[in-house]
């Protein structure tokens, strides 16, 4: 399956929903919100998210723990149980899947939308052979049985770089290393021939050299199949490595979204700037890190106005009362900040400080 992506800015149309979009987004969240039950009524954890994924696009979602980056996608696929309230739309190729009955949504999960999580070992069934698990997916989503399923299972294991596939199919997850199990998870996700893969911290539990292997594999598969990707990660480096476009989340909202190079090169939201200057680097002069003051607010104690205002050096009175909408900050770049005029002028986030400043 090849998808017609020729522009090097595949996300452009998706970023300008008020313009006539030439292609329907593959996956779109519209005003999507999630609330968890709390002692004093529902606690909103995702507060109105609009996101578009163009066919074949790779979108990275970054943010710190508790920002809602994983919850958004788990809730969108109704994987969080009954107590969780959601509102807004999740459209897959134009069709809202939040209204689908459970049996129909179950066909979408693992079918048109593949999923992989952080800890492969706990996602796999420990008492079933790898082959049994793969062939179950092939039967459910592709209707393959017997020899056909076996052949396809072998092909998938081979595709994800697992050597000696016939023997491996008969083995159990505990006989595989963490990196190998993540390859199996990718094979399971690919078994349904998904149009989009949602990967939630797929390499966080893996060692550095194994992480490089898995990122390389995902990149390869995407190049081959044209599959869309939503990559959720706390590591901006991982996202920058794989994604065309990045959305930064803070306290349940998207605060900035742009093409990867633009977001890294000229971030406009003060939180994005803060995140980038808090990161140590392997290159360039060694400089003292610039941390973001304070901590992330708890979901049940969200400050009024912009949730980042209490930690923001640019915040004014207006920031503490008005919730900023996600608006165009530059071509192909949106940010939810009332002080965008100031962040256009302020110096770049990654300003080197000489090593002498350490003493």
């Amino acid at each position, binding site marked *: 399956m090849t998808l017609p992506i020729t522009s090097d800015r595949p996300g452009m149309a998706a970023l300008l929903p008020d313009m006539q979009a030439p292609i329907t987004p593959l996956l779109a969240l519209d005003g999507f919100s999630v609330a968890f039950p709390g002692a004093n009524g529902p606690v909103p954890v995702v507060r109105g998210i609009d996101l578009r994924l163009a066919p074949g696009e790779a979108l990275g979602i970054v943010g710190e723990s508790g920002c809602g980056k994983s919850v958004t996608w788990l809730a969108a696929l109704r994987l969080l149980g009954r107590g969780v309230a959601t509102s807004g739309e999740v459209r897959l190729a134009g069709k809202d899947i939040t209204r689908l009955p459970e049996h129909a949504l179950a066909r979408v999960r693992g079918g048109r939308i593949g999923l992989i999580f952080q800890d492969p070992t706990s996602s796999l069934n420990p008492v079933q052979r790898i082959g049994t698990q793969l062939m179950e997916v092939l039967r459910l989503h592709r209707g393959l049985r017997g020899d056909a399923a076996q052949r396809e299972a072998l092909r998938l294991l081979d595709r994800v770089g697992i050597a000696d596939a016939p023997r491996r199919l008969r083995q159990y997850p505990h006989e595989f290393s963490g990196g190998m199990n993540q390859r199996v998870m990718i094979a399971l996700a690919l078994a349904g021939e998904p149009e989009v893969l949602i990967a939630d911290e797929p390499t966080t539990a893996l060692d550095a050299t194994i992480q490089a292997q898995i990122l390389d594999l995902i990149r390869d598969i995407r190049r081959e199949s044209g599959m869309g990707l939503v990559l959720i990660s*706390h590591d901006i*480096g991982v996202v920058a490595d794989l994604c065309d476009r990045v959305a930064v989340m803070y306290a349940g909202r998207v605060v900035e979204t742009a093409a990867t190079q633009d977001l890294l090169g000229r971030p406009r939201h003060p939180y994005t700037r803060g995140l980038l200057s808090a990161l140590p680097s392997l290159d360039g002069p060694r400089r*003292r890190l610039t941390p973001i003051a304070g901590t992330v607010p708890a979901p049940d104690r969200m400050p009024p106005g912009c949730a980042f205002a209490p930690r923001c050096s640019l915040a004014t009175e207006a920031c503490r009362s008005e919730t900023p909408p996600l608006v165009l900050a530059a071509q192909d770049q949106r940010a939810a900040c009332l002080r965008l005029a100031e962040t256009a002028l302020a110096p770049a986030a990654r300003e080197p400080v000489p090593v002498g400043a350490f003493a």
Partner: protein
Amino acid sequence: MTPLLRVDDLARHYPVATASGQKRLLHAVDGVSFSLAAGKTLGLVGESGCGKSTTARLALGLLPATSGRITFAGEAVSATRDRHWRALRRRMQLVHQDPLAALDRRLPVGEQIVEPLLIHGLEAGIGARRQKALQLFEAVGLRPDLFERYPHELSGGQRQRVVLARALILGPELLVCDEPISALDVSVAAQVTNLLQDLQGRFGMAYLFISHDLKVVRQIADEVAVMYLGKIVEQGPPEALFHAPAHPYTEALVSAVPTLQRGTRERIILRGDPPNPVDRPAGCAFHPRCPRAIARCREETPTLRPTSDGRLAACHLVPVASDAAAAAAA
């Protein structure tokens, strides 16, 4: 000048039984030597199972070594928990990854900071102890009103600050930090990284800093040692190691770090997983995954030797400093 901490040919083996019931030896740490000067930071990096945490526990005398020698400020460190051991342990403290596991959930954090003084019978008088604890509370950047709080009432970053204050109250000369910021979010990790640097500037203790995160190690270390399967494979200043790695494993490790500047560095993808330490490959342990291995690597184990630019590397392919140059450097 004698180094603060000196480790010579340190090894720790564990007897294990394989699936088929055979008795084998797992070489967790296998001939590690290094020294750490007072007030300096040695970063120990490597992937899971390379022996970096075991090395730290051996150095602190928390675990008996199978062989080798550890000297702290000129005195031998043993794992026999006698008076001598306790006196030494007062001068070397450990900070690890999970602050919640390191703290007692039923005790206010202030009391936990005071506790080491009680254990070692220092600083008589409740008032004096509390005074000292509050001073450290301030030094690690915690508000005094948090003193009476319980660990679950604090954030992850605040808890790690409490752990640091507790480690510092005895005035240690060495702080062993085992992945101290790995569990923290980006913005908080930066706060704690800066704090570690500030505390070293203020109190002058040495750090043995263990991490899988090369970027954090580069930020904080004066010298870095890279471990693979229980051995140090390369050691030198961070800029040399990370910008011009000599050992092929260091090179792969550095190239595997995802950076914001996409495509600035060629990525080396190693094949396979690190081997099981029970089945350590013959010759150089890295040769089955090494893209540059030659016949000699399969037979002969390379030793850690000075290279022409002064760092240490254990690789047959890295040019060794000539004896004269090595003597001049020493």
